[in-house]
């Protein structure tokens, strides 16, 4: 397992090199000039050329790339062109907000998704099954931005139960009230994934429940609860874990819309603004960071398989 993990971690290197080249090329080959966007519509040609020199944008592309990579390896992630701040601290603080949101959403999605899936499968074709699967289908289809706005109006404006946007009350920074602030964005983000997990769990459970060893377990006289949770669920979870792993990547990227609607200060909004402003150092740094996280999440998912299914072994 350790050897496998190390091997996977080594494989991270070519992945990141690939990602860095890809991001660098896509950004630099897209038309649009960061200097012009940064200096605004009223800057002169000389000012823009001077800024190109200052930012090193007048150098050949491969030299710019190597400079960037060497600096990253030295721990210098550069300075955001648009926001005039160091990239690394900026990415780290913003990622923290996204991570909190994503983890919360994943928690809701997995908990309620699994429960709904199990109930549906054990009570196949019952009223509960139909109701839950109908809700799952709805949740799967609802656009996040629409759901987010509706939740804001309902719980924030009409009922006045929950705050509408942001991460804390104005002027009161800190994590003290984060629970109240995360509910609406977290739920909006979770709904799609929750639905996906519920549907996946149901179909996977149904398949397992019909297998011989479940009948054997029942015949042994085990209680229905033990049969469902210890015997059926564990095996049904493997495809679900795959979906969860993929969905976490989806949550990370889906967070962009939710972050914009709920003014959540995460990395998604940072990247979108960065791309629009051709903020090369910021976008490159942020994408590299997110790609690294994504690779780690995938690794963890693969390790979880082995825990769930003794037949899978990485030794």
């Amino acid at each position, binding site marked *: 397992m350790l050897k496998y993990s190390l091997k996977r971690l080594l494989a991270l290197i070519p992945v990141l090199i690939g990602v860095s080249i890809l991001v660098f090329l896509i950004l630099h080959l897209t038309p649009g000039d960061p200097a012009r966007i940064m200096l605004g519509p009223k800057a002169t040609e000389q000012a823009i050329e001077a800024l190109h020199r200052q930012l090193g944008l007048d150098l050949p592309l491969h030299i710019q790339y190597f400079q960037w990579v060497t600096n990253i390896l030295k721990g210098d992630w550069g300075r955001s062109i648009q926001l005039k701040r160091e990239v690394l601290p*900026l990415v780290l603080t913003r990622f923290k907000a996204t991570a909190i949101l994503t983890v919360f959403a994943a928690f809701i999605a997995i908990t309620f998704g699994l429960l709904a899936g199990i109930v549906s499968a054990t009570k196949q074709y019952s009223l509960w099954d139909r109701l839950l699967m109908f809700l799952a289908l709805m949740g799967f289809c609802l656009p996040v931005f629409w759901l987010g706005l509706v939740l*804001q109006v309902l719980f924030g404006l009409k009922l006045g139960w929950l705050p509408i946007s942001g991460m804390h009350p*104005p*002027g009161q920074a800190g994590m003290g009230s984060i629970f109240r602030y995360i509910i609406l964005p977290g739920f909006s983000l979770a709904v799609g994934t929750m639905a996906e997990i519920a549907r996946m769990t149901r179909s996977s459970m149904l398949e397992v429940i019909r297998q011989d060893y479940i009948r054997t377990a029942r015949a042994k006289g085990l209680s229905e*609860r033990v049969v469902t949770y210890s015997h059926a669920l564990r095996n049904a979870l493997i495809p679900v874990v795959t979906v969860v792993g993929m969905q976490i990547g989806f949550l990370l990227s889906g967070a962009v819309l939710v972050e914009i609607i709920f003014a959540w200060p995460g990395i998604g909004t940072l990247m979108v603004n960065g791309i629009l402003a051709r903020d090369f150092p910021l976008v490159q740094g942020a994408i590299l960071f997110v790609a690294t996280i994504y690779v780690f999440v995938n690794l963890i998912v693969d390790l979880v398989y082995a825990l769930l299914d003794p037949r899978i072994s990485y030794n």
Partner: protein
Amino acid sequence: MKGMKTVKRIAFILILGLAVLAIAGCNGEAVDSENTIVIGIEAEPTSLDPTQIVDYNSSRAAMEMYDSLIRFKDGSTDLEPGLATEWDVSEDGLEYTFKLREGVKFHDETLFDAEAVKFNIDRQIDPDHEYHDTGEFGYADTTFGMVEEVIVLDENTVKIILDEPFAPFLGNMAMHSASMVSPAAIKEFGKDISQNPVGTGPFKFVSWDPGQEVILEKNEACWRGAPQVEKLIFRPIKENQTRLTELEAGSLDFIVGIPPDDLQRIRDTEELLVLEQPGMHTWYLALNCYRPPFDKKEVRQAANYAINKEAIVNDILKGTGIRAVNLLPPLLWGYTDDVRDYSYDPDKARELLEESGYGEAELTIDFHVPESGSGMQQPVAMATAIQSDLEAVGFKIKIQQLEWGTFLDKTEDPPETNEFIMHELSWMGDNGDPDNFLYTLLCGTQWPPKGFNGGFYKNDHVDSLLLEARKITDPARRIELYEEAQQLIVEDSPLIVVDHETQIVAMKKKIQGFELHPTGVFRFDKVTIQ
């Protein structure tokens, strides 16, 4: 039966969850101090150093902290003394001497003096200045490009020498880029001055939590008198609908960027107040006069008659702009509406197209449109309306949508390689001078990449009027020159002006005494809270 238990358990958990939510809800919003105004802006400020600011979200949050030597009066672009108490312009219009207000201190307690003025201007325009590399100054050339030297005469007197007479210079000295930043702070923070602003204005900096809020508090020692409001909190909220919901729920006190469809409802809401005023903004189509078909005046005029601007303003913008007849916004001095009237007249447009002699081949053109952009209002919807109007009289229009950064870049290509035959753009004035619109956008010396005359318009007579008007200081004579220039320009129709955007803000009625300013910055220094 076991299954039933599971169901019950799930139902229990769900109900428990809802109960927690409801209880959490009962705690209610933490009540802000009475004297705080929470303002919803459209995006995160990029810098709070006024010399580096190129967008409204930054200037709205920052300009409460700064003063310049000359200020725009409240509610207008007329000038009044700021950090300078009086000034004197030499006969030849080359030397400006400013007498500075004595005893004014920056928020860091250092003294404002003539050296500080010199430091601030030199930092922006002198590449060899020790602190030139502490920022990127997008407006330096527009504001101070004509400055040859800044001389400190004594502690409270400073003389600025220009390399050629430039009539709008006093207006430039009131622009945001001419604000005075504490030299001591620039020396201390270097490039990070962007996040550590220190000025002399009525509010001073408290904190900036990236992506969340910028907090300012009142400056008790302000030379203009301390403001009534204790605290200003600027919150960037990108989504218009969210910002509006926050205002209606009461968690924001003041917002910009109200969706046109919701405007009437907000106007009718008892507890809210909507302020509207045309700003120094013009939305226009630039026609490429360098190439067919718009190299012929008849075709440009035909396009101008063909477009139903009234309908665009009423049906697309829903009254968030006023119809334009001229490039200058009506609230600017020198404006005249005594120009050729291009009211919607498709028949006349067809006649003019006929006269031009151009056929379908020439009249088939690409129309370049940005997806969004600063001051662009609703670029795509407006372009679609324009397309159908033009096609109705015989043009064949293909809309090409570009992302804003890419679009801006292409507008600056030189005439030989510029692929834009027709594109939309908008302009916002900064110094309250007609020169800022007419010379900058239409003088024959200002073709890209040097300037912003993106339609490559050139009329020698117009050029001579505009060049003369920027050299002389007699206001009456300047007005005459600008009026004549406007008549000639509108006759030539190098641009099709559509509307002037209305500045719209909505606030709680408890905020009293707020007045919109034509330059688009906010002034909360005289506001009181009931």
